[in-house]
């Protein structure tokens, strides 16, 4: 249309890194037990998965150090439970506020330690963590309303083991309802991402929480196992289904209460009458958010056959524009894989997908030499029997399958050992609700995906676990109903 032609430019975004000096990291951290920082017997380095450089030394707690933390929580339990509920609520508020005050610091550390894009840690992880404390703080003196007027008592001491994909957010999901209900807690963060939980411990210290109410012991799986077997009244675990089963076995026959939030192979279902461009955004968000390290990731994409070609073409075009790289760059969409072990698992499952005959497409993007990286990938021609359609990959890999009728979509979606979440994309409200009603998944998103809110319950069916977190339902696991 112009009368003069000007050469088209290539316009690249210049690097826009969040300043790393926002992170006030120390070189070494102790265990937080009974309100004191206690030097551990053994320390290990935690590394930046984007560079493989060590960030800090943290404790690798032994069974006796875990027991000491549980003892501190036990000692603090009667006083904390006896506190007027309104006063307990105030303490929880006092954790929420500094989380926001220090949000930049926390977001940078979360991205450094876990590899997730700063865009996500800044816009999702940290604000949502604070929102959980704010929300549950308000419940502290209104518990009888949430519990239908029944009498109740706190569980006592709770052992909480959290995963590496949303370290600070999972700590908030666990601690906020536990504290609001009058329990004391021992929190064991994941081995590869201990740092923000330690910063949260500092925040608890600054909030002058009574000593022993919150204890943080860093360590590996052995420390988690020690916590499960320690003198706790309840265990809350978020992580893999394999470990969840071990914990369930360990606690079988005891009166220790248990909630498990485990793996998933969630179906994201796109009907032919959906708003396709927005559905594609939901597919991208569903599987590439946090490199696919999301228990409810929409890793099985079920598309109605009549629109499959359009959806796949648009999805692929959109994937090719994903910006993979430095997690601290504000324009990065997909960051680093959390650990060498996880990268190996993703790589081997993807290899199995190709071997079994599915068509693999990975975007061609420059990946850094150091660190752990995997390009966003989709698989076409996936059969329901393929391992990539059955097993949780926990990485940026989506398996595309088609269906012909709503009935078939529902059957396919439910045909899984898991049942954590699902997405339904349709412009037909009646269809959205009728399909959602039949899906055996703890969360069903309609025309959106990976949307979290502290007032909404989250949890699974089948091998995705039991118990709910979030909202009034998330209070139940932390009380004992006495009448």
């Amino acid at each position, binding site marked *: *249309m*112009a*009368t*003069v*032609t*000007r*050469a*088209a*430019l*290539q*316009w*690249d*975004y*210049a690097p*826009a890194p969040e300043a790393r000096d926002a992170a006030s990291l120390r070189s070494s951290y102790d265990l937080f037990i009974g309100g004191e920082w206690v030097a551990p017997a053994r320390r290990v380095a935690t590394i930046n998965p984007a560079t493989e450089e060590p960030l800090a030394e943290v404790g690798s707690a032994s069974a006796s150090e875990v027991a000491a933390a549980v003892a501190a929580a036990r000692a603090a339990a009667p006083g904390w439970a006896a506190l007027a509920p309104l006063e307990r609520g105030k303490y929880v508020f006092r954790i929420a506020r500094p989380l926001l005050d220090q949000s930049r610091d926390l977001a940078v550390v979360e991205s450094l330690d876990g590899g997730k894009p700063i*865009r996500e840690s800044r*816009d999702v992880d940290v604000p949502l963590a604070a929102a959980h404390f704010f929300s549950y703080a308000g419940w502290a003196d209104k518990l009888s309303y949430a519990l239908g007027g029944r009498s109740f008592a706190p569980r006592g001491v709770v052992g909480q083991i959290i995963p590496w994909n949303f370290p600070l957010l999972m700590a908030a999901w666990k601690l906020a309802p536990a504290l609001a209900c009058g329990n004391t807690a021992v929190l064991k963060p994941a081995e590869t991402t201990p740092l923000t939980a330690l910063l949260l411990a500092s925040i608890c210290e600054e909030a002058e929480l009574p000593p022993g109410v919150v204890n943080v012991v860093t360590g590996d799986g052995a420390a988690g196992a020690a916590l499960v077997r320690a003198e706790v009244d309840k265990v809350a675990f978020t992580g893999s289904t394999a470990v969840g089963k071990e914990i369930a076995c360990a606690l079988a026959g005891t009166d220790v209460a248990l909630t498990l939030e485990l793996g998933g192979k969630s179906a994201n279902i796109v009907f032919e*009458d*959906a*708003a396709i*461009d*927005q*559905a594609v*955004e*939901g597919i991208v968000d569903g599987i590439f958010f946090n490199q696919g390290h999301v228990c409810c990731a929409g890793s099985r994409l079920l598309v109605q056959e009549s629109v499959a070609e359009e959806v796949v*073409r648009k999805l692929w075009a959109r994937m090719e*524009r994903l910006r993979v790289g430095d997690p601290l760059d*504000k*324009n990065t969409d997909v960051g680093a894989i959390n650990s060498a072990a996880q990268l190996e698992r993703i790589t081997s499952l993807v290899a199995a997908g190709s071997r079994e005959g599915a068509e693999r497409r990975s975007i061609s993007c420059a990946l850094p030499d150091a660190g752990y990286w995997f390009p966003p990938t989709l698989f076409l021609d996936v059969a329901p029997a393929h391992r990539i359609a059955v097993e949780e990959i926990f990485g940026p890999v989506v398996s595309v399958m088609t269906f012909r009728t709503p009935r078939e979509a529902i059957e396919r979606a439910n045909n899984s050992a898991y049942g954590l979440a699902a997405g339904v994309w349709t*412009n037909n409200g009646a269809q959205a609700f009728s399909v959602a009603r039949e899906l055996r998944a703890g969360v069903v998103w309609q*025309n*959106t995906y990976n949307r979290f809110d502290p007032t909404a319950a989250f949890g699974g069916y089948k091998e995705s676990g039991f118990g709910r977190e979030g909202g009034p339902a998330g209070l139940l696991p932390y009380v004992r109903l006495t009448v």
Partner: protein
Amino acid sequence: MSRVLTPVNRVGVDERAAALGRRSIKTTAKRQGIRLAASMIDLTTLEGADTPGKVRNLCAKAVAPGLGLAPVAAVCVYPALVGVAVEAVTGTGVAVASVATGFPSGQTSLDVKVLETREAVAAGAAEIDMVISRDAYLAGDDARVAREISAVKEACGDAHLKVILETAELPTYAHVRHAAELAIAAGADVIKTSTGKAASGATPGVVLVMLEVVRDHLWRTGRVVGVKAAGGVSTTKAALGLLVLVKETLGDEWLTPSRFRIGASSLLNDLLLQYAKLDGGHYGRAEDFSKE
């Protein structure tokens, strides 16, 4: 025949547009983006008080914006002032665009619209910015809307036709999508958001939906249709935001004035202010740059 709308999810569109609005454009990307945005401007004056003198000043600014920036893509004026503008920009590479068809409301007969278009083209306009008849569109008379676009397109001859949807007056994003498809099918070379005279203009969501229509049309037919964002784009941040939308919806090859335009009057001076700041490290004063 009743109209069939392709579903568009408002919440999803606005979220995607907002997410792209958070892209961080700094240093070299900002410098290059400002140059690019300036080159895509249809520098516009559309006031009752426009005079030959005012238009000549505008043209001088269009040809040499200052700070070594390349000329803008076009000047955009009322039909009566096309001759003045043509005389002022001939040989400079800046095109002359004229609004036509009873701009901005379009509430006049098709004969008058066609005549106005012919006169503007005869006076030397290389581009015509027409408005769709919102009265017909809102009443469901898609056939009339299409007929008028086709007639004006024919009257354009070799001139390029930009069809203004006036999205602020359309009910939903699904209607924006539908009206855009209708305009393209009827012969639009470019689809344009707004007149600049309505309550809102080129919001990121509206531009995103129109870019998606153009992408889908390209994929389906291989034909390139341009997009012009106009109305309310007055800051560097807003303009760079539009470039991000284009880049991430259609790709770098669309970052050219032959495929994407920004209709604006005051944007150019903000681009100059920001551009000068990149060099000097501090903001200048608005008075440092000529208003027109």
